[in-house]
Structures are given as C-alpha cells and as structure tokens.
C-alpha cells in the first residue's frame, strides 16, 4: 500500500518536474527575449533621439504648425514621445516573441485577434487626435473672434465649443471600438438633446423678454454717424 502511494507521488513529482523542465526553455526564452528587446529598444531610442535632435525635430514640428503635439508630449518634447513609442513597441514585440516560445498556437491566435482589432484602435486614436486638434483650433477661433467682437462671455463660448467637439470625438472613438455602443449612443443623444432642450427652455421661458428686447434693439439699431468716429486705420 505504502509502496503504491510512494510510487504515485514519485510519478506525479516526475510529471511535474518534467512539465517544469519542458516550460523552463520557454521561461528562459521569454526572459532572454524580454532582456534583448529592452536592450535593443534602449539602443534604438538613443540612436533615434540623437538623430531627431540633430535634425531639430521638435522645432521643425512646431514650424509645420503641429505645436499641439509638443504640448501633449512628455516634457513638451515630441522627440521624447517618438523615442518612447518606438521603444515601447519593440518591448511589446519582444514580449510576444517570448510568449510564443510557450505556446505558438495560443500566441498566434492572440496576435491574429490583436491585428484584426488593431485597425479599429488606430482609427479610434486618429479620431481622438483629430478631435483634440479640431477642438483646440475651434476653441481658439471662437475665443479670439469673441474677444474681438467684445463678447464678455467669449471664454465660456470657447470652452463650450471645445468640450462639445471632444465629447463628440470620444463618442465616435468608443463607437468605433464597439465599446458600449448602445450606451454611448444613448448617452450622447441624451446629452445633446438635453443641452438643446435646456437652451430652448432658457430662451423660451427664462429670457423671453431679454431676447425680445435684444432683437428689438438689433432691428431698430441706427448706425452711428461716421463723423463721430475719429479713427482711421489704413
């Protein structure tokens, strides 16, 4: 009886050890791949950083009108951003190679799914990036235009426009990623509908007289005689 138990334990230990032994090359391969990818990423990022600094990449980017990229980069340096993206990508690829050493079929399936989803991720990122750029541009346009028209609420308008565009682009990106599609659409519809309804109620009920007075003023406004204005610009 005891012999049989001992034999069973021995067999299970042998099986475990043989399984560990069979995993060991994979673990070593993962560590080696990770270390190598970190080294390669480090080397490449140093080379890339030197190259980008030598061609004055940061200044060129600003010169091409892409200053918003600089503002969003770590320490306001697009060079740093590019080198980090490249280094990160190399490390991720190294990890995938290392994981493939364990189970090639599992990883290949993972990679296939990842690559199938990648275009959606990229498109969503592009939508977010464009949304952010457009939001900033429109916000600035509205702010400058509003100030030049002497509107006291120019900043409020500008912030409103900015968030409207950002919310729209986030909703579009989430919709594209198929994350909570129904909820996003519903929430977005409620949000916009709510804003429009709130404005309509505010104008229709709260500020009815104010609006009518303002419209009356606009209609009855007589232009100031030119002689009163002493300034001539050009």
């Amino acid at each position, binding site marked *: 009886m005891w012999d049989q138990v001992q034999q069973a334990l021995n067999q299970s230990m042998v099986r475990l050890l043989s399984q560990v032994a069979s995993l060991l090359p994979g673990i070593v391969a993962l560590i080696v791949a990770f270390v190598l990818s970190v080294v390669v990423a480090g080397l490449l990022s140093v080379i890339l950083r030197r190259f980008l600094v030598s061609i004055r990449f940061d200044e060129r980017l*600003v*010169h*091409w*009108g892409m*200053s918003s990229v600089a503002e969003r980069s770590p320490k306001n340096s697009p060079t740093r951003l590019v080198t980090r993206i490249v280094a990160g990508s190399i490390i991720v690829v190294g990890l995938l190679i290392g994981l493939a050493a364990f189970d090639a079929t599992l990883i290949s399936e993972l990679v296939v799914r990842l690559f199938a989803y990648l275009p959606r991720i990229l498109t969503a990122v592009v939508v977010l990036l464009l949304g952010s750029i457009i939001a900033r*541009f429109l916000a*600035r*346009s509205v*702010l*400058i*235009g*509003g*100030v*030049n*028209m*002497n509107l*006291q609420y*120019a*900043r409020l308008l500008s912030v409103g426009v900015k968030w409207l565009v950002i919310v729209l682009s986030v909703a579009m990106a989430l919709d594209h990623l198929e994350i909570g599609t129904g909820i996003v659409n519903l929430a977005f519809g409620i949000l916009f509908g709510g804003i429009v309804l709130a404005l309509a109620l505010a104008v229709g009920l709260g500020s009815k007289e104010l609006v009518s007075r303002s419209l009356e003023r606009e209609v009855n406004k007589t232009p100031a005689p*030119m002689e009163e*204005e*002493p*300034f*001539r*610009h*050009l």
Partner: protein
Amino acid sequence: MELDSIPQSVRERLDQIGTADLVVGLLSNGTGPGGESVHEIHQALKAGFGKLRAVIIQDGESALEPVEESESQIVLSWNLIGPERATSPAPSISDAFQLMFTASQKLEARACCVVASDLQNVTSGWISGLTQPVLEMDYGLVTPRYTNQRFEGLLNTGIVYPITRALYGKRIYNPMGPDLGISGPLVQQMLAADPKAKATGNRIHPVASLAPTAICGGMTVGQAYLGARVYPPVDWTNASSLLAQVLGSVFLDMERYAVHWQKTRGSVSVPDFGEPNTVTEETGAVDVKRLVDSFQLGARDLQEIWSLVLPPTTLMEVRRLSRQAPDQFRMPDELWVRIVYDFALGHRLRTISRDHLLRAMTPLYLGWVASFALELETAGPGVVERRRERLCEAYESQKPYLVSRWRWPDRFNP
C-alpha cells in the same frame, strides 16, 4: 499673375495697343464722383506728358463716364476689383495690383501708376507727382506722402511705417501706398517674385511688398506730397481681418528679406517731391472707452494665447497695463514695439496658427490706439509729428532685441 486672368476682350485691346510709356490704374471704389477726376487726369496727362503714350485703366466697366481717347491717350475699363471688396478689401486690391502689373508688363511700360484711394480727393497732380520721378529720374518706386489728421492712418503710424523704417533703413511714410508710382523693372521683379512665393505657399501681397522689394533690390525710392486722402470709414467688426491681412504681409516680407534687414542699422530720409500741405489743426477729446474695454477683455481672456508669443516680462507689463484706469491708460513705446516684434517672431516660428496669432493681436493694437489717442487729445500737428518720430525711434532702438530673438529664439527669451 498670368495673362489669362485678364479678360479676352481686354487682352485683345492690349495686343492692339502694343506698347506704352505709362500705365495708369484707377481703382476707384465707386464712392466718389470719379468721372470728373478721370477727365482731369486725362487732361493732365495730355499737358504734362504730351509725347508719352499713356494707357489709363479704370476699374468698373461702366462705373465711370466715358473719356475721349487720342493717339497717345488710351482708356480701358474692366472690373479690376471683384465684388468681394465690400467684405475683404486687401486681397481684391492685391489682385487688382497684380492685374495692373501684368498689363503694364504686357505693354512694356516704363512706369505704372496705381491710384487706389477714393477718387474724391484725387487730382491730376497725384499722377504726375507719382510718375515724374520714375519717368524722368529713374526712380524705382514713388510712394505717397499724405497730409494726415492726427488719427488717420493709425495702422500705418503704429506699425507699418515705423517697422519698415527700422527694418530697411528708409523713412518711407506710406510704404503701403496705396497710391504708388512704380518703375518697369520693379513691376518685373514683383511679377517674377509671385510664382516663387506661391511655390513656397506664401502669396505675395504687392501693396505691402513693393517698398521692401524696391529697397532690397537696390532701387531708388522717393515720396511725393499728395495732400489729404479720403480714408475708408472704420469697420470695427472687421478690424481683426484688416490687421491680419496687413501684418501678415509685413511679417512675410520680414522673413523674405531677413538677411537684408539684419544688416541694416539706423535710417535715412528719402527724397520728397512736391510741396508739403499744411495740416489743419484738429483738437478735442476722443472717446477711447471702447478701445480700452477691448484691450482689457483681451488681457483677461487671451492671456493663454499671448503667453505663447510674448515673453513673461512683456506679459506681466501687459497685465499691469490692463489694470490702469481708462483716463490713465498709457502704453509705453518700448512695450508696444516689443509686442510687435514678438508677434513677428511668433509669425515666423508658427507658434500657433498664423491667422489666430495675427487676430489675437487686435486687442493689443486697440490698446495702443487708445494710449496714442489719449496722449494726443490736445496736441497740434507739430506735437503729433514729434510723437510719431519718438515711436519710430523706439522701433529703431529696440531692433537689436528683434535681431537677437530672430537669430536665437530659444536662447534669447527675456
């Protein structure tokens, strides 16, 4: 601009004419009693330039009364300025200038005179004043010298004249005309420069570029006393567009001729032609509340944008200025000049969209106008002239600041 941009019928007429000594363009905007002036100009050309073959090109196919032609005096009418002039004056005038240059080159004219001011005040003396130095003394460019009231031509007084003087070293009072006498070689240079500029995405605005091109091309520049000019009324809703168009052209020329102006020191007068007219004294208080309000609103809301262009010290001074009471409001010349230079640098570096940058300058400009107006509330013409001169000197004395920031925008940031 290509010959194709000229209507077929006009092109055929130009072919028939062949060559001319002088091309006169009248870009009347139709608000004045133009016909009389065209007749006067016609008579003056006959009397003054009897032997010369002149072609008068007037804007509008039927806006002006028909003029009797002769062998040496030919009158052409075509729509030089598009209907969009009402909303946006500068580009259409630029296009009209380019059309005039194209016609002038086609006719191989020795001189081209463009009168863009309202014809109400234009006399025959304007044409002869602007063209005689070109035709008889080989001048490259003759600019006008108007008899201005204290608050007329403020954009020219506050930025265009002093910056042109400080950069290129010539005291040209109205470098952007808009009434100008231009030599044939300068016309050719302007036409040659246009495609090059288009290729780099920077369109040349001939009205702004004429003076820098003439100076940097080594041509002689003079100015003619023309008397009073009728200025278009101020459109406050369009002030930022005007500022953006004018300063955009000036700043583009700064980039184009950076090598030249960085070597220039001080300034010299250019020869004047004709007799200066006396300025009728105009005094009295002006209401600058709207201007100060605009400045203060800008200082409150545009700090974020200004901080991308202006160094911290300048920004601090602007903030301090915005807290001053309207009647105490004074913008020091040095501060104003540094602001203009910093915006020129921001334009060059494209710190933000160029259109945003130039429009964001509007409250600062209105602040300067308010300060200038308050200082000269009770001033006579002599005082106004001295005040303008002091501002020009500030532009010249601050030029090393511009040169340093232009050369080392990152390292030199006070």
